[in-house]
């Protein structure tokens, strides 16, 4: 069984994708042995009615067996009254965490609004997922020229929020973590954008972080989900490493929050 922590529902703004309808997505995930997906919504990138986005996301996930699609709502701290969105994510929709998109929402990691939203999430015990990039900036749509998230402030943020459970999405493109983990065990990466032959094996061998902090992520449906599954096959891993990456780490991180 695999837990995929990097999945989206709905439509990419400028391309139809083979799996951008939930039934087809679910069918494919199941076929690949992915028994749980942590999902955000592509709508969160550009829509400004974030509450509407989150309500649809929660409803879509609730339409499937419990625990299959785990919703991670969006919060845009540039919008008025964003704390209410965060509250609803947790208290109304029972989401275990939120997914932030600083680059699409117009702030950097060293902006005070970022500090504020992380502080609030930490106080509420919410997991924060932070995608650093969504697509290849060399071929990004010319009308969507969003800068990638600059990870340089990450170590300081991580140190300032020792209780925050942070999952960096799309942060291993360079074959190493986008930023050091500053010794924190509550910070996790996934490998959707990791490249190179036997990338996972090398990532662990190079000792950038312990296997306990690596999660399975596909960045599906922007990427096909088979890529992440095949990367597990490509790398030589022990059974313990494989189990940790495929589900045990994510399960530990999520705790008993699903369905609570």
């Amino acid at each position, binding site marked *: 069984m695999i837990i995929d922590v990097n999945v989206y529902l709905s439509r990419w703004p400028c391309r139809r994708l083979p799996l951008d309808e939930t039934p087809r997505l679910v069918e494919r995930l199941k076929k690949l042995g992915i028994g749980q997906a942590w999902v955000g919504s592509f709508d969160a990138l550009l829509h400004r009615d974030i509450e509407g986005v989150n309500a649809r996301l929660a409803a879509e996930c609730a339409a499937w067996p419990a625990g299959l699609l785990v919703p991670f709502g969006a919060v845009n701290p540039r919008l008025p009254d964003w704390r209410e969105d965060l509250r609803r994510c947790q208290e109304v929709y029972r989401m275990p965490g939120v997914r932030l998109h600083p680059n699409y929402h117009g702030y950097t990691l060293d902006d005070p609004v970022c500090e504020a939203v992380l502080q609030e999430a930490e106080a509420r015990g919410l997991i924060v997922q932070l995608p650093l990039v969504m*697509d*290849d900036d060399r071929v990004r749509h010319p009308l969507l020229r969003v800068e990638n998230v600059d990870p340089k402030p990450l170590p300081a943020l991580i140190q300032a929020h020792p209780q925050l459970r942070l999952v960096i999405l799309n942060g291993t493109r360079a074959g190493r973590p986008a930023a050091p983990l500053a010794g924190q065990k509550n910070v996790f990466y996934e490998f959707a954008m990791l490249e190179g*032959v036997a990338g996972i094996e090398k990532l662990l061998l190079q000792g950038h972080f312990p296997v306990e902090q690596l999660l399975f992520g596909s960045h*599906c449906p922007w990427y096909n989900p088979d*890529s992440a599954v095949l990367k597990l096959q490509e790398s*030589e891993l022990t059974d313990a490493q494989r189990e940790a990456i495929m589900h045990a780490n994510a399960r530990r991180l999520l705790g008993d929050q699903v369905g609570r």
Partner: protein
Amino acid sequence: MKYADRMGIDRLIVFLGFSRMPSPPPAQFREDNDEVLRVLEAAPDRLFGFVYLNPNYVEESVRELDRCVRDGPMVGVKLWIALECNDPRLDPIAERAGQLKAVILQHAYWRTVPNLPDESHPGHVAELAARHPDVAFISAHSGNDWERGIRGVRAVPNVYTEVSGFDPTAGVVEMAVRELGAERVIYGSDAGGRSYASQLSKVLSADLSESQRRLILGGNIERLLRPILTDKGIQL
């Protein structure tokens, strides 16, 4: 090779050597090709080589083509980012490759930020190929911006699109098959910069018939290479 085995990849086409100079002088590209020739000796039953040339040095490139393909074991040409490939300086190289029945693989990126200096895009490949209709050209990476890259070669039937060297964005192979036909789509890995897994997944995940998948994963390149392999007495 060990990881190719893990992924079920039987044969690899290798090129470039280790210097990876964008516009190597002749001495350097000869050295690069010597490295590849040595590698080919290690596993001649599983590796094929393409000769790396620099069209800024036309005469030397044609001589190197003869050395490595006509007189050596290589079976194709690799062109990278030395010169936009619609340049007429490419013509003698394409003509010689055609005489030798060698396939030409041209790096082609179509960035939405400016391309690298002298970097070709798929439209350049199509221009060159239209001047040499009897030579098989492979537009590498489908341009990365594949929604443009596939269109860019669509009208020229002797151009094949290859799907390595960019993220495993969903839908690329489906679009390529829709627009070019499965007979003009070729799998590649771009290893070791890329993962065999991520690149293979583009084909394995695509909504295709098994016969289409077989063409893309090996049948097409086998068909393109068969004439030169036959001339060399190599059986697949």
